[in-house]
């Protein structure tokens, strides 16, 4: 790893303690991955939620903030572990909330943008094709590389803050042209797609591609950016995927399509998707919580959900939490969408997301979702049983007219 004079100075501590610590981290990572240099980024996206960072992560973030660290590029942040305005109403204990607020405070001190969403690319962080970013949050990295065409590696917690402070990232992996070509081609051969199929297909790709970069043919021509968002999130949750070549969508994907003609083609059948569903759907018990929005739903998706819930009420004691960004939730408020959704008994919650909130402590034992990412993460822990089903089935089963 080559460091220029200014970077060497920072490593020696001439830019202060925070920058020295940040440079130590980037230099170690750069060495470990065989990067040749550190290059500038146009934005960072970092993690500051208590459920994953724990007390150790609070101490790391506070160390950066107290030692004079400041973000040097526009920096956005993933969801918190609690709804930052309404946490008490969602049954969060005060001790838990206090730890999250310590993270919020340190993040604010570092100069971060207060977005608290995992779909920053739909809310407040808009790089263009070809630019280099350093984003944590695996689902957003897939979106960045596959749809926007900007370049990001999947940035590990710790490195995210260091990169945001220095405005630099090690040059390796997805930043290099030679690593951005498809190496295995998937072909979706199962006909019609419902909402679950995008997630199950993504999950299947993540599970089977290994370290090869997947290309994917056979998506419907009218596939939405939201559907691609969920496909990518699922792929990143089940494997090391950081990009999926989507012919006609990924900038420059024409050439990749050509080169995929000579590589292994994996035909994905309905049976493959059913196997994913069986893996992620662990029980037939009735859910006590329906969780929608991992990753965060866009305001457009909230509108579609409002239509699906029209004239329906939640059955019995089942709860339905709808996770989104505060920006989308405020837009939904002003558009009448929130009122439509909440008249069913469902609740919209912002600034947080299901997979990083303390669902068990909030009293839930069986959670139903159409998110493969949520199902994968929660079922791995084994404390909560997951139901995994398409939105149509979820609404039919958990609501009545």
């Amino acid at each position, binding site marked *: 790893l080559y460091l220029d004079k200014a970077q060497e100075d920072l490593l020696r501590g001439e830019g202060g303690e925070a920058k020295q610590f940040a440079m130590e981290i980037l230099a170690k990572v750069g060495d470990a*991955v065989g990067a040749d240099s550190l290059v500038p980024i146009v934005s960072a996206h970092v993690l500051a939620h208590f459920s*994953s*960072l*724990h007390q150790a*992560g609070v101490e*790391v973030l506070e160390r950066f903030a107290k030692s004079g660290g400041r973000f040097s590029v526009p920096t956005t942040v993933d969801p918190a572990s609690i709804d930052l305005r309404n946490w008490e109403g969602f049954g969060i204990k005060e001790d838990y909330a206090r730890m999250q607020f310590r993270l919020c405070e340190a993040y604010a001190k570092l100069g971060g943008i207060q977005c608290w969403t995992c779909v920053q690319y739909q809310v407040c962080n808009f790089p263009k094709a070809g630019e280099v970013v350093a984003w944590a949050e695996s689902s957003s990295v897939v979106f960045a590389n596959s749809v926007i065409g900007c370049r990001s590696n999947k940035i*590990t917690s710790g490195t995210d803050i260091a990169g945001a402070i220095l405005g630099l990232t090690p040059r390796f992996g997805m930043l290099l042209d030679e690593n951005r070509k498809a190496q295995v081609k998937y072909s979706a051969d199962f006909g019609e797609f419902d909402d679950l199929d995008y997630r199950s297909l993504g999950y299947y790709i993540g599970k089977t591609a290994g370290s090869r970069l997947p290309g994917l043919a056979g998506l419907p021509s009218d596939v939405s950016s939201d559907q691609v968002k969920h496909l990518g999130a699922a792929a990143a949750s089940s494997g090391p995927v950081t990009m999926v070549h989507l012919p006609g969508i990924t900038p420059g994907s024409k050439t990749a399509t050509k080169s995929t003609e000579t590589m292994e083609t994996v035909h994905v059948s309905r049976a493959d998707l059913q196997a994913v569903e069986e893996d992620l759907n662990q029980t037939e018990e009735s859910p006590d919580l329906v969780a929608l929005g991992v990753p965060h739903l866009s305001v457009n998706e909230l509108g579609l959900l409002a239509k699906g819930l029209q004239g329906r009420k939640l059955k019995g004691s089942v709860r339905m939490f709808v996770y989104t960004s505060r920006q989308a939730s405020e837009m939904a408020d002003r558009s009448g969408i929130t009122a439509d959704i909440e008249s069913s008994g469902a609740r919209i919650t912002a600034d947080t997301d299901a997979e990083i909130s303390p669902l068990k402590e909030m009293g839930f034992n069986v959670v139903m979702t159409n998110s493969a990412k949520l199902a994968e993460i929660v079922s791995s822990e084994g404390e909560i049983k997951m139901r995994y089903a398409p939105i149509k089935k979820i609404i039919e089963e958990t609501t009545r007219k």
Partner: protein
Amino acid sequence: VKRFNGRPLIGGRVQGAPLCSSRAFTFAHGVDPETGNVTDVRSDMLGKNVKGTVLYYPFGKGSTTASAWFLEAVRLDNAPVAILTSSVDLAAVIGSVLADEIYGRKIPVIAGLPLGADKVLSSSSLAHVDGTNGEVNLD
């Protein structure tokens, strides 16, 4: 005596009983930092404890928060004493850098072990790890 020569990523000399997986592994939702127990139901180490072990897995998977989960295990003194992998797992590298900086704990990390190293490692009762030159010696 058996020996592996890997790629040294984080220095330090330790020894411990090997604990091995043949599958992709992550600390995130995969290890309870408060006990060191492996909790990932998809792991072949489910129910084992990582504390004090020389941990080998071929490659990382999943969440970018794995470094933070690893660091919390360090803070609570439930971490492995060394981490060995085949592919570089950045979570191990970052977690170890932070462990040194924040808690003054040196946890060597070595990558580049051959796939299938778990079979050799798990037949040994003690592994001596030198993270500075990338050497692993087995009793």
